[in-house]
């Protein structure tokens, strides 16, 4: 089943055309990595998919439900009510965590399930504690984000996203704000989620991680997808010159 389908998305900021014509679809249980040089439009693609930006043109579907359709070369979004429901299908983990600093770790995780999804508080708390244990930070539940390391904060952010029970989870460069040691902490968590068949779309610069964990790698450059496929093909035997040049540069 296709969880996410984006067709022919276009996005322009002022005069800068960031996304030129991009289509992707993600199957249930799939782990997709998006690679590419900075400024290639990776983050914008993710922000359009998570409705933080509106597309200029193109269509967007979650689980077969329409979020936006292309009408006369322009994206037309469905009503607020539908959007609100569909928003529950996906979660997003940010590069700089964006935890709420005035909430404890536990409250960061349980607040939205309780007050947005209107779920039972006891139940949500139990689930949250399970998530924190999984992340190895159950002992930090009463801490405030500022008291945690970057890696711990990002694990809280991942738990916060998971607590909403999303069908698909997006990661926008989840390790870019972390040093190598903390990066490996987060990659471990992502590997664990991949093993549990969590559907994930990850924008990353960690080539080795993309190769080892993802089912499919998408390579973006200048607003286009210039190569995609199994990681062995895209990363180890790239056909496109620009992909080859980029990989050579980042892999030294």
């Amino acid at each position, binding site marked *: 089943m296709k969880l996410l389908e984006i067709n022919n998305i276009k996005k322009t900021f002022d005069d800068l055309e960031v996304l030129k014509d991009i289509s992707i679809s993600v199957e249930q249980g799939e782990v997709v990595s998006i690679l590419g040089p900075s400024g290639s439009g990776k983050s914008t693609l993710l922000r359009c998919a*998570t*409705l*933080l930006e509106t597309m200029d043109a193109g269509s967007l579907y979650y689980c077969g439900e329409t979020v936006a359709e292309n009408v006369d070369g322009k994206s037309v979004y469905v009503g607020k009510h539908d959007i*609100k429901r569909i*928003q*529950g299908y*996906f*979660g*997003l983990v*940010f590069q*700089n965590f*964006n*935890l*709420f*600093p*005035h909430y404890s770790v536990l409250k960061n995780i349980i*607040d*939205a399930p309780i*007050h*947005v*999804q209107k779920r039972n508080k006891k139940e949500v708390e139990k689930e949250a504690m399970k998530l924190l244990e999984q992340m190895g930070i159950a002992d930090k539940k009463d801490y*405030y*984000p*500022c*008291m945690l390391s970057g890696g711990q904060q990002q694990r809280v952010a991942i738990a*916060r996203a998971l607590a*909403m029970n999303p069908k698909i989870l997006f990661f926008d460069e989840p390790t870019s704000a972390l040093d190598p040691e903390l990066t490996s902490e987060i990659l471990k968590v992502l590997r664990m989620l991949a093993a549990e068949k969590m559907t994930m779309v990850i924008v990353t610069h960690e080539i080795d991680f993309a190769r080892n964990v993802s089912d499919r790698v998408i390579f973006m450059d200048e607003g286009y997808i210039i190569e995609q496929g199994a990681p062995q093909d895209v990363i180890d035997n790239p056909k496109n010159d620009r992909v080859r040049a980029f990989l050579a540069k980042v892999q030294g």
Partner: protein
Amino acid sequence: MNKKVFIAAVVIFVLLVPAVLISFNITKVTGNEVLDNIVSIMNRLSNGIWSSLILFGLTLLFSMPIGLLVTFARRSRFKVVEMITKFYISVMRGTPLMLQLIVVYFAPYYLFKIPLSSDYRFYAAVIGFSLNYAAYFAEIYRSGIEAVPKGHYEAAKVLGYSRRQTFMKIVFPQMVRHVLPPVTNEVITLVKDTSLAYAIAYVEMFTLAKQIAAAQSSILALFVAGIFYYFFNLLVAFVMGRIENKMNYYTA
């Protein structure tokens, strides 16, 4: 005993002494002429102290919430509302408070030929002060709101919080912490600014002090008034400092 608590106790005691002297109408404590004069000055200032405190309290009570409404209007999506609010703020900040008080006091007469009653002095003072301070508070609040990182709004949006929830749960609590130091400044200024109410012949403490000083041909009464302002502001600073410490629980 905590040093701060000790200072607070001293301040409250200093403020309490005149209250006791006044309530028991004690005018002669010692045989010393100067000391007795000070006590009698305190006694005669008593009515003015209450007038000042009531003006101070009511101004805060009204201007703080009105300031929040002004902030909303200032940040409105509707350009007209934003422009009107900007104009209001620029007039309130750009003209003397004393002039504003005079305008508020005399406006009913000049505009509608409503005869001026002496009761209205009090209302005019409260209205004038509240409108003026609301403008300053509005700008302080705005800076506090704009200090909340954009990422927090985005995280809230992806988690499905409504606009209202985002403001009440995420933005407002952080804003309050950001604005406490500048709000303390404003509150302290207000304590001293109440003396401007003399412009519309509202009898507060400083007006009385000037009268006594003129009658005695001595600045002693003004000096006593100064001591009151000083100790009252010490108390304000202490209370605000405590609140600030309390709100700092989540910062490193």
